[in-house]
């Protein structure tokens, strides 16, 4: 894997910016790390985008790591119990077949 390509997110990660953010998540060369430390607000659309980034990466045999979760992000991840979706490999592995079947 090449050197880390970090995407730094700032401000709102919400429906209002979803359109503009989608290309950034899927940019080439692929993003390997998304830094969420500057995220002030996260909504369902934002979660979906993060999931999309993760899913696309997995489908391409890569991975994308989320780092520096801000309080707003943790709050939502907790609420939706989706930390596992993005989280460590142990949990991801157990779900990978399902993930593969979906795409």
């Amino acid at each position: 894997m090449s050197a880390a390509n970090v995407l730094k997110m700032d401000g709102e990660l919400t429906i209002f910016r979803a359109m503009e953010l989608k290309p950034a998540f899927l940019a080439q060369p692929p993003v390997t790390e998304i830094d969420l430390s500057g995220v002030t607000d996260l909504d369902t659309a934002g979660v979906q985008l993060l999931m999309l980034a993760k899913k696309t990466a997995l489908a391409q045999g890569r991975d994308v790591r989320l780092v520096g979760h801000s309080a707003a992000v943790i709050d939502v991840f907790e609420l939706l119990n989706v930390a596992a979706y993005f989280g460590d490999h142990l949990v991801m592995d157990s779900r990978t077949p399902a993930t593969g079947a979906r795409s």
Partner: protein
Amino acid sequence: MSLDMDDALEMFLVESRELLGDMETALLALEGADDKTEMVNAIFRAAHTIKGSSGLFSLDHVVAFTHVVESVLDKVRADQIALSDKLVVLLLSCSDHIGSLIDGVAAGQLAGTPELLAAGEPLVTQLRAFLDAAKAAAQAQNAPDPSRQMPTADTEQVQRIHGDTANADHWHISLRFGPDVLRNGMDPLSFIRYLGTMGRVVAIETVTDGLPDAEHMDPELCYLGFELAFQSKVDKAAIEQVFEFVRDDCRLVILPPHSLISEYVSLLNLQQGDAARLGDMLVRCGTLTPQELDMALNTQVDAPNTPIGTILVEQGSVQPEVVEAALTKQKQVKEAGATESKSIRVDADKLDQLINLVGELIIAGASVNMIAHRSRVIELTEATSKLATLVEEVRDSALQLRMVRIGATFNRFQRVVHDVSRDLGKDITLVIDGEDTELDKTVVEKIGDPLMHLVRNSMDHGIESAEVRAARGKPAQGTLKLNAYHDSGAIVISVEDDGGGLKRDKILAKAIERGLVDASHHLTDAEVYGLIFEPGFSTAEKVTNLSGRGVGLDVVKRNITALRGTVGINSEEGVGTIVTVRLPLTLAIIDGFLVGVDKAVYAIPLDMIEECVAYSAEPGHDYTNLRGEVLPFIRIRELFSVPGKPAKGENIVVLKHAGQKAGLVVDTLLGEFQTVIKPLGQMFAQSKCISGSTILGSGDVALILDVPALVRQAMSKSGQAPPERAVVG
């Protein structure tokens, strides 16, 4: 297509304004309310719906602003932000700002003007301050919880899920949001958050099966679903209530605690994707044990083509509460349908058209009636009289359609009083009476501005500051009263304050200084008070931003006169002032009474006629003795310079207006007649004592007499001071 959009947009504008009205009412009602939940919900619903609908029209500036408002309200609902007085004031301003944005949209500025957007910024900043404070508080509160500090707290999560699996004594909620919820301005997160305030979300699984690949994924659509285990004492209806805003836009399945396996089967059946995967989730949520899931899946396989409902009935296994819940739901839907159909929205133009037609019908009916009488065919006369009765009923119901309660107009003033009293630093309460009084829609629309001015004037100049009030021995809180009632064919609206009253000497001095009256002239109190409605008259020592610029009260009078109404004022220095606005009930059709003078016919509004008596007069004077009372009268013959000698057996029609009586001497009494008011042309605008014209059955034109003007004239002629209040309109 674009026409359809225009219609839809029009609907949106109307609805948004109504919602803003609701929002304002709820905000104002918050003060002093015991249970605020209902109102907070109403406010949230308003903001929420406006945001959602604006999204449909791509009014991004409206969505962006309302989104922030909604976020704050969401936190209020979740008890994370206290509803302080300051917040209420801020939300009121926000509601105003949304109103201006909507007005801007109505004016064709679909993206908002820079000025408007700039005006919203300080509000957004303030709202954000509330949000930040709430966030900080929430974090402080949750700090001791270690799971919050660990970004990947999977172990903790897993433990939490399995910790409660032993007993499935919780609700299971299965949620699949429609693709458009995000676009409609709703965020599934907020519903789940809100759910958390009603009980404990034991476990939650986010269903990501719907998420397509990168190419096909539209970031503005919602692809997620949720399976929740929820522990709470609330009932099913309450849970459904949480999702009320998205009910049409999501698939919601709520299973009560200890539901039978078969019900989970039906849930699995609903799932379009992999049933086993969903089953897995139910197990993870702790709703089902693995054994139960196996049973469920087996049942499903056994009867693949049988609708689940049938299975349930066959097994007789549906829990009563589920059936009940379903029935209640159905009933609710039915009832909702019934109430919805109770009122329909009709274009005001169509209504006006109907009234016009009814007017024509009455005129045509009158002419048929006359011909029938002339032909002396009894059957025809009977038939036409029956027809006339029906036409009269049609007229009444048509006019009734235009009648609206004045309550909505009055309630707007709650806000005005709230704001203005703050601006002025006075404590003023508004008391509203007679809000059920109905009057013509046009009148209601046009009376708003004059009333606004009267109310502001009372608050600014009438009610004294708290110190002065205390010194005068009055309660510190000033009272403003709005009242409406019907009185002899008119509607009376009064604005009353318990303030300082009018200073007679000061007004008189000012009027003399301005040359409005002659210093040597003797004026009654009422006449003096009436002067404040003259153009360019203001006694306020200093000009405030509310009133006191010397414009306004004359405009009030002009507007009310334009509605064929009058303004009266009565005041007692140190005690208070009452302004009385008197308006005709309708503007289109009235019950009239026809009188004849020579060959001309005049119509008088029937409601204003007290009685008719045979002519008599005190010799040499223009008044008569009516059962011991002095009744001044006017001879129409003289007033309109009708030629010819008075007929034998003249009559006096006794008119009553605003508590005063006057007589009108006419030749003949011709009886009742439904009078369709036709306005007089511009040419006759200056003619006094005539308020309009109507067309008789014969096709002749009859003039409608302006009773208030006649009564006034009779009074001034007889030199008699009006008993109670002056009529200056």
